[in-house]
C-alpha cells in the first residue's frame, strides 16, 4: 500500500481552513446573536430570495454566453498549428495577469456616458446608456470568465486523437459529421468543467455588479459582503444556502456528464 504520510499536511490544511470554517458557518447560521439555536437567520435570508434568483439567472446567462463564444474559439485554436496554438492561448491569458479590479475599472471608463463606446455609437446616431444595467454586469462577467471556459474545452479538444477523426472520415464522415459525431461528443467533459468553472464563481461574485450594474442589479455575493458587517448569522445562512445551491448544481452537471460519456 502507498504511504499516506505525504498527505498529512494537506489533511491538516483541509481541516483547519476548510472543514472548521464550514462547520462554524453552519453553526452561526443556526443561532441568533446570543448564540442560542434559532431559525431566524434563514427566515431573514429568504427576504433576499429575489436577489438569489437574479444572481443565479445572471450567472446562468453569463455561463451560456461564455459557452457560445468559447466553444467555436476553442475548436479553432485546437485546429491550429502547434506553435500558433501556444501563442493564441498566451494572448488569451495575458489580460488575466492584470488585477481584477483594474479590469473592471477599465470597463467603467469604456462604458460610461461620454466614454469611447458612447461617443463612437452616438456618431452613428445611437444614444443609450451602457452602464448601470444588467447587460453591463453580464458583459463584465463574460469578459472576466471567458478564459475559464475556453481553456478546459481547448484542452479536451486538443487531446482528441487525430486517428479518431481519420477513422470517422474513413467511415464516410464529411467535416460536419466528423464534428457532430466525434468532436462534439468527445468535448463534453471540457464543456462540463468549463461550465462549472464559470458558473460557480459568477454565481457568488461581488463587486462586478456594484461597479457595472444598477441599483437593482445587486448580486448575492454583494449581499453577503454587506450583511456580514452587521449580521453574521444571516450572512452565514445566505452563504450556506448559496453553497447548497451550487453543490446541487454541480451534482446535476456531473450526472449529465456521466450520462454523455456512456451514451
Amino acid at each position: 500500500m502507498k504511504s499516506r504520510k505525504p498527505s498529512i499536511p494537506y489533511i491538516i490544511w483541509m481541516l483547519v481552513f476548510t472543514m472548521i470554517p464550514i462547520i462554524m458557518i453552519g453553526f452561526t447560521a443556526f443561532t441568533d446573536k446570543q448564540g442560542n439555536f434559532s431559525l431566524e437567520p434563514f427566515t431573514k435570508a429568504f427576504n433576499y430570495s429575489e436577489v438569489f434568483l437574479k444572481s443565479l439567472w445572471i450567472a446562468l446567462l453569463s455561463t451560456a454566453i461564455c459557452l457560445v463564444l468559447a466553444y467555436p474559439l476553442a475548436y479553432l485554436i485546437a485546429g491550429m498549428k502547434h506553435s500558433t496554438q501556444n501563442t493564441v492561448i498566451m494572448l488569451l491569458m495575458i489580460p488575466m495577469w492584470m488585477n481584477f479590479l483594474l479590469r473592471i475599472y477599465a470597463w467603467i471608463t469604456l462604458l460610461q456616458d461620454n466614454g469611447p463606446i458612447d461617443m463612437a455609437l452616438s456618431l452613428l446616431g445611437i444614444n443609450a446608456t451602457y452602464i448601470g444595467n444588467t447587460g453591463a454586469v453580464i458583459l463584465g462577467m463574460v469578459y472576466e470568465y471567458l478564459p475559464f471556459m475556453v481553456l478546459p474545452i481547448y484542452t479536451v479538444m486538443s487531446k482528441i486523437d487525430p486517428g479518431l477523426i481519420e477513422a470517422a472520415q474513413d467511415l464516410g464522415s464529411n467535416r460536419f459529421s466528423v464534428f457532430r459525431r466525434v468532436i462534439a461528443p468527445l468535448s463534453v467533459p471540457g464543456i462540463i468543467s468549463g461550465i462549472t468553472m464559470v458558473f460557480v464563481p459568477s454565481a457568488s461574485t461581488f463587486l462586478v455588479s456594484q461597479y457595472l450594474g444598477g441599483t437593482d442589479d445587486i448580486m448575492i455575493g454583494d449581499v453577503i459582503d454587506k450583511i456580514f458587517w452587521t449580521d453574521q448569522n444571516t450572512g452565514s445562512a445566505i452563504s450556506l444556502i448559496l453553497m447548497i445551491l451550487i453543490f446541487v448544481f454541480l451534482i446535476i452537471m456531473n450526472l449529465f456528464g456521466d450520462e454523455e460519456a456512456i451514451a
Partner: protein
Amino acid sequence: MEQLSKKVIVSLKDIFVSFDGEVILNHINLDICEKEFVTILGPSGCGKTTTLRIIGGFVEPDSGDVIFDGTRINNTPPNKRNVNTVFQKYSLFPHLNVFDNVAFGLKLKKIPKDEIKKRVSKMLATVDLKGYEKRSVSKLSGGQQQRVAIARALVCDPDIILLDEPLGALDLKLRKSMQIELKEIQQKTQKTFIYVTHDQEEALTMSDRVVVMNNGVIEQIGTPEDIYNEPVNAFVADFIGEANILNGTMIDDCRIKVLGNELECVDKGFGKNTPVDVVIRPEDIEITSPENGQLVGTVVNSTFKGVHYEMSVMCGKCEILIHSTQTAEIGSLIGMRIIPFNIQIMNKLLPFYDNIIETKVSYGNKEENYFEFVLEGETVKVDGHFFETGTKVKITLPPDALSLAGNGIGDLKDLYIESVVYKGEQNEIILESDERKWLMLSDTDEQVATYVPLAFDFSKASFEVVENIKEG
C-alpha cells in the same frame, strides 16, 4: 501471368511523395487485383504506411496517379472512397459502445435502422463478438478491440480493406491466431485486403502476394514462395526469413565462386567474373563428412530449436548458419553440400564496392601536409596528403575506411541507413547522403531508417591526380 486474368481494382502509377524535402515514396508502381490479399512489407520508415494512406485518401501524392476501378481518385477525400481502414491503434470511438462503433459507417450511409441492426449483428458474429453489443470499447481486451475495428471496416461492405499493422499491439500467441482468423475472414468475405506489416512471418502466412519495400521503393513483388525462394537482392533475402548472404563472384553462367570454392549453380546471364551476392538458406545446407563436403568448416555453436538444430559454422573467417535435423559436436570439422538449385545469385545492391570521390582541392597546405575539399557543402580535411589548390583528384575509399562517427560530428552529417546486411563476417551497410550512396563495413548492427554521421579514415584511402592545376 495469373494476375492478368484478374481485374485490377486499384493501381498506383509513378507515385512520388515527399515531406519537408525528404523523399518518402520514390516513383512507385503497384497494381492490386480484386479479392487479393496483398501485404506491403518493409522496415519502419520504408514508406509502406504512406502507400496505404494514399489508397485510403489521407495522403495526396506530389505526383503520379491513383487509379481506382479505372477512375483517377487523387483528389477524392477518404469519405468518398469505397475503402475502409483498420487502423494501427484501432481508433475506436471511446464515446460509443461496440454496436455503435460498428454501426458508425452504416448510419452515415442512411441505411434503415432494422438493416443496420441486422448487418451489425451478423458482422459481430463473424468476428466472434456476439453479445458484446452494449459493452464499452474501453472495457475490451486488445484482441477484442482489434476485432471491433475489423468489423467496423468490413460492415461498410467496401471494395478494399486497408490494414495498417493491425496486430502490432497484440502478444505473439494472439497475433498468430488473429493471422489465421484474418485470412479466413478475407476468404469468407471475398474482399481485397491490403495489409501493411514489418513482420515477415505475418506477410508470408497470410498473403497471396507480398510487396517488399525499402527506402521509398518497391524491391520485389511476388508470391510468398517467390519472395522466399527467389529474392531479387540481398535486402529482400535478409529481410525475409534467415539467410546466409555471402559475397561471391560469378565466374561464368552456372559457375559461382564463393568462400574460395567454385560451386555449380543454375543462374545465368550475370556475365563473367561479376561480383554478386549469393544467398543460401540455412535449411538448404546438407551436413556431410569433411571429405565429401563442397565447403568445410568448424562447428562453433549448436542450439536445439525443437524441429531442428541451429548451427553456426566457421568457414574460414566467415560464419555460416545451418538449420538441420542432424547436429555435430562443437569444435568438430564438418563438410557442407548445397544442391545447385538452392544457390540463389543476385546482383549487388550497389554497382560499386569502393566509394569513389572525384573532387577539386579547395585548399592545400604544403608545410603542414594536408588538403581540404568540399563534399556536399561540408569542408573535409585530409591529413598526410598534399595537393595544390585546384587540383582535380580521385579519392578511393574502401568500405572499411568508412565508420559511424562516434563523437557525433563526423565528416558528413545525417546519412540515412538504407540497409544493413550481414555477410557472415561483417555487416555491409548502405548509407544514403544528399547526393549519393555509400558502402560501409561494420562489426556492429545498426538500425535501418535512422540518420547517422559518417567519418572517413583517409589513411586507408588511395589518391590519384586526375588533372593538375593549369598554370596562369
